[in-house]
């Protein structure tokens, strides 16, 4: 059984003024409690701010008990920084996200899902747009979440398909079936999940970022409609947009004053709730000996994209992300294992072996930061490709204090 920590001391520092409001997903059957990472923006109140004209700040009645920074200055800093970033994003286009010579891999929608799995693994990518020859355009995206859902479907009740049908089960058929599945528990999904969410190369970076946030997707294709032929140019993610921001403001840090603030003083990220919080719900973490199927359940139901793996002291050991699922394609591991017999520790080993065998230098898997780190440091780390979240840890003990993801950062920066 997974050990989801609902009690115990977290040793939190005092620079934590904002009681975190958690919203539980109503459709969950399991007994452990989950939360939605995207709703996890702690709210803070501002008493009087006569000079502030912005109406994007949340104001509620929660007591504000931070002792250090002057709240009015903080508020003004946030507003100014947000405004400047907004201007930058509105005046630059998605064309800037393209590398000088980029590669993008697409899959035909009639490919069997199993083969798609292997292709993504061999190419070292986790996401690919889907091309439908019959309609002559891109119709969707295959992402790690699809594989997780497929594996759970197969694991749960062996599927209705015969072995041979599984071999040829096409992506298009899977997407049809998934529509039925997701309608059951994803009430917050995009309005029209069948329509491809994409952007053009001349769309502003702000539009791209907003599309990513509002549709809760990690990647959208940049497609140029050249006459009647759609040209796939790039797969855009918040990482690319953040890199543009960092590059642009690198030489004028004073123009974004909020960047100097430590992240514990900004309403950003998801924090482990304080001891004694009456409405505090557990922060999703798992032990290394928990089963893979529990991890996948968390990734799906809690709608988080990664789960920190901790030891008995809540110190960070590793992290399991949705994109790690493609490592199961190594030696067809997914066919031989039952999800609840494979521990997270073993699954993580597979990921490491997978990276090694393809000559990929995995680098650091868990990217961490301290609660006292300034925002610009956090932004620089999040701008590294492949890093979608940072785990906030206590110095020394590496005890998990919270998580900041790209989504959290962008919701804070552009609202």
């Amino acid at each position, binding site marked *: 059984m997974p050990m989801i920590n609902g009690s115990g001391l977290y040793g939190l520092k005092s620079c934590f003024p904002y009681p975190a409001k958690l919203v539980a997903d109503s459709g969950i059957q399991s007994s452990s409690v989950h939360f939605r990472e995207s709703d996890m923006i702690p709210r803070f109140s501002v008493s009087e701010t006569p000079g502030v004209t912005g109406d994007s700040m949340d104001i509620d009645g929660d007591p504000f008990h931070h002792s250090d920074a002057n709240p009015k200055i903080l508020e003004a800093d946030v507003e100014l920084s947000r405004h400047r970033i907004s201007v930058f994003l509105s005046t630059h286009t998605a064309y800037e996200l393209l590398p000088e*010579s*980029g*590669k993008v891999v*697409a*899959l035909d929608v009639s490919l069997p899902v199993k083969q798609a799995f292997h292709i993504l693994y061999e190419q070292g990518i986790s996401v690919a747009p889907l091309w439908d*020859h019959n309609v002559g355009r891109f119709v969707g995206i295959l992402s790690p979440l699809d594989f997780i859902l497929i594996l759970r479907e197969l694991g749960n009740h062996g599927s209705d398909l015969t072995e041979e049908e599984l071999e040829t089960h096409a992506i298009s058929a899977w997407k049809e079936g998934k529509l039925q599945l997701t309608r059951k528990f994803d009430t917050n999904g995009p309005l029209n999940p069948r329509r491809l969410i994409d952007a053009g*190369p001349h769309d502003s970076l702000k539009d791209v970022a907003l599309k990513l946030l509002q549709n809760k997707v990690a990647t959208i294709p940049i497609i140029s409609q050249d006459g009647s032929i759609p040209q796939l140019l790039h797969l855009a993610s918040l990482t690319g947009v953040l890199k543009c921001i960092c590059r642009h403001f690198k030489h004028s840090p004073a123009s974004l004053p909020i960047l100097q603030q430590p992240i514990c003083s900004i309403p950003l990220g998801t924090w482990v709730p304080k001891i004694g919080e009456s409405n505090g719900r557990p922060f999703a973490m798992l032990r290394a000996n928990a089963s893979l199927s529990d991890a996948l359940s968390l990734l799906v139901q809690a709608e988080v994209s990664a789960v920190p793996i901790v030891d008995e002291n809540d110190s960070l050991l590793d992290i399991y992300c949705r994109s790690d699922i493609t490592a199961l394609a190594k030696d067809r591991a997914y066919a031989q294992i039952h999800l609840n017999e494979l521990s997270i520790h073993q699954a993580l080993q597979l990921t490491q072996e997978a990276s090694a065998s393809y000559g990929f230098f995995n680098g650091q898997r868990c990217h961490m930061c301290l609660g006292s780190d300034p925002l610009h440091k956090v932004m620089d780390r999040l701008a*590294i490709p492949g890093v979608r979240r940072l785990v906030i840890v206590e110095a020394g003990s590496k005890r998990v204090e919270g998580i900041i993801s790209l989504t959290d950062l962008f919701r804070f920066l552009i609202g």
Partner: protein
Amino acid sequence: MNNSHCQDQETPVVAGFEVPTSPDASYNNIYTATEDDGRDPPIVPQHLQHTVLSYSYPKNGDPAARLPDPQHVVLNHLYIENREAPRSVVALGFSHRFRSKYVNVVLYKPVQRRGSSIS
């Protein structure tokens, strides 16, 4: 450059400064053999082999991750992946230029069974 032919026709030759002709012994080129002419010309221009489509991004999180620029001569040519015959998936790729950047696209398609046309 010394072109004695030119000199003969245009420039008046000064006595004592005529350009000597090559010694007859230096004319030792054999006639070209027929095996060079016997070969068919290549089916495809050789420069088309230099495609960057087989490259992948380095996985070390390098912020400057990009492929090498494709040669301009390979742009807008459709490539097919070279794999052994019994295969169920084929990779097609081509490189093109979008404004001043290069895009290398690879599409994986299923191969139809024998008896039906490949879509």
